[in-house]
């Protein structure tokens, strides 16, 4: 898939430490909470800790994806060639509500 390949390039090359980032985010929010389950997986090749990080990343990806789609729809409806703040804002409201769980 072209999408995934480009994304993977970005990941491999540009990504500083996505899981590090995610873990940091989590620690920031919930310092009392632990995160990973590295015990299960073979540690040798895992650059990060367990499936957890990847799944979180997947979650974020999907969220961003949905957000982008929604804002793009808004922009279309407003017949704008450019995505503007308002579009993004409205989309964010909807999507955040959706991802409440």
């Amino acid at each position, binding site marked *: 898939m072209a999408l995934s390949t480009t994304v993977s390039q970005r990941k491999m090359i540009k990504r500083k430490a996505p899981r590090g980032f995610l873990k940091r985010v989590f620690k920031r929010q919930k310092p009392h909470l632990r*995160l990973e389950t590295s015990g299960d997986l073979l540690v040798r090749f895992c650059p990060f800790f367990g499936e957890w990080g990847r799944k979180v990343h997947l979650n974020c990806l999907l969220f961003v994806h949905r957000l982008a789609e929604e804002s793009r729809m808004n922009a279309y409806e407003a017949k704008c060639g450019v995505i503007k703040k308002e579009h993004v804002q409205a989309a964010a409201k909807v999507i955040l509500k*959706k991802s409440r769980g």
Partner: protein
Amino acid sequence: MAEAMADSYSQDSEPTTRTLLRRVLDTADTRTPQRRRSARIGAQKSLLETPSSRRLSISTKTNARQRSQRARSIGRLAHVQISGHLEEQTPRTLLKNILLTAPESSIMMPESVVKPVLTPQVVQSSRQESSQSSLELQLPELEPPTTLALGPVAPGRRKRRLRLSVFQQGIDQGLPLSQEPHGNASASSLTSSLNLTFATPLQPQSVKRPGLARRPPTHRAVDVGAFLQDLRDTSLALASPGNSLRTPVATLPTDTVLEDTQPFSQPLVGHSPSVHHSLPHLFYTEAKDAEKAVGHRTQSTGPRLQNHSPGKPAQLLATKAKNFTMSFTNTIRAISGKDEVEPLQGGVSEEAEESMEVNLSVSKVKDTTGTQGSVRTEKSERHTEMTEAVEAKEPEGSSDEDISGRTASPELVSSTTEFLQARQLPFLESAPPPNTAILSSEQLEPLPTRLPPRARTLGPRPHQDPHKTGLNHYVKLFSFYARMPMEKAALEMVEKCLDKYFQHLCDDLEVFSTHAGRKTVRPEDLELLMRRQGLVNDQVSLHVLVERHLPLEYRQLLIPCAFSGNSVFPAQ
């Protein structure tokens, strides 16, 4: 005969190519013709002898033959010089023949065949000869020799240039085209230099340094001037943040520098973009300080505050001059929309209250922030000014005043927090500079002033930087998914949304893990989250999503696959 003529000719006229050649030939001919003559004579003699042996048979004929042969021999002798040469076909012979026979004008052709050693002399001689022959003037005859001296270096290029120039000037002057074929036909620089003689005197100058002649000197002057001006502006603009970074207290010189830049640079509006870049640097220093002061209390408002904090205190630092601040805000307003203001106005009151808590907590840090606080107090005034300047920010202004009134004791520190909240709305408009601050944040890591590093957890500074960079990564992904051009303000919005999302995410994960009676978050929690989010249905399974969105390397790590030896990776 011809030689005699040549000798006389040479004596009379200046050394021309022809004369030189003749001399050479003569000196050489003295030897060879004798040999040849002797050989020929010998041959003829033998020929004569052989018929003479037959005299008895045909006396008359032999006599006649002898005579004829003698005549022929004489003729041959006369011709030996030529015919012998012809038969031998040496360059010398050829030259001599041509000299004898060919007209002067066509000397150039054979001369090209001559050894290049002769060329310099030949050039001069030919030139002079041609000068004599042609009525046109040849002023700088010395120059072509110099060019010839340099010729072997790059004869090809010069030839083309010369030819072109000659052609052009020839056209201009209406030179006969016959001369050009001469030059074109020749393959040596010699002929090209010869062509010079037919050209105008301007030509040699260009020939001297053809490259320079082509370049228009004026063109560079203009560029350099503009470039210097740009350099000045950029250097001045860059110098100011450098100064401000090192001595945040001593903002006066920076301001003076900033003010000085104004007359040099274009109008303030035009200059503001450059200063925008300088300001973000300042933003960031103050942002870090503010973060350190506030960082440990990173609650829900934390990210919001921190998002906005970079803008506010730094702005305060930078914009001491009233005019500058006013213009800055105006430009900021002009750049960004005002939409961000509205939704955040509602949140201002909440944030004001929270800021109070933050202020109290931050009071501990006030010692270290003393110096900066003093600066910030000054800026608080400016802030108030700015708030006044900001029209639709009345509630903010009230909140500012309230905050300033309450936090009397931790004055210094509170000022920072005041700015944090007070500046939230207007600094939302200054989203672009914080954006640039964020982008340039990595560069400024080592520079900001040292604040108490007693961060509660990891420290606000590392918190902010990689946080921002990580967020930026997702923002880029967003723009990629959107496939449409986006405004910078929209990207800011996306950042905020991502922050909120992360908060929600962590909360949910915590809830799930505690519900499962665990203290660590496991992938199962994430799966549950995704299901609850509606991402994973009965129709769409997790693996499908993984395959869709993640690259291959991650996919094989997430989706269990069966391998040889009855093993499954990753292990279930």
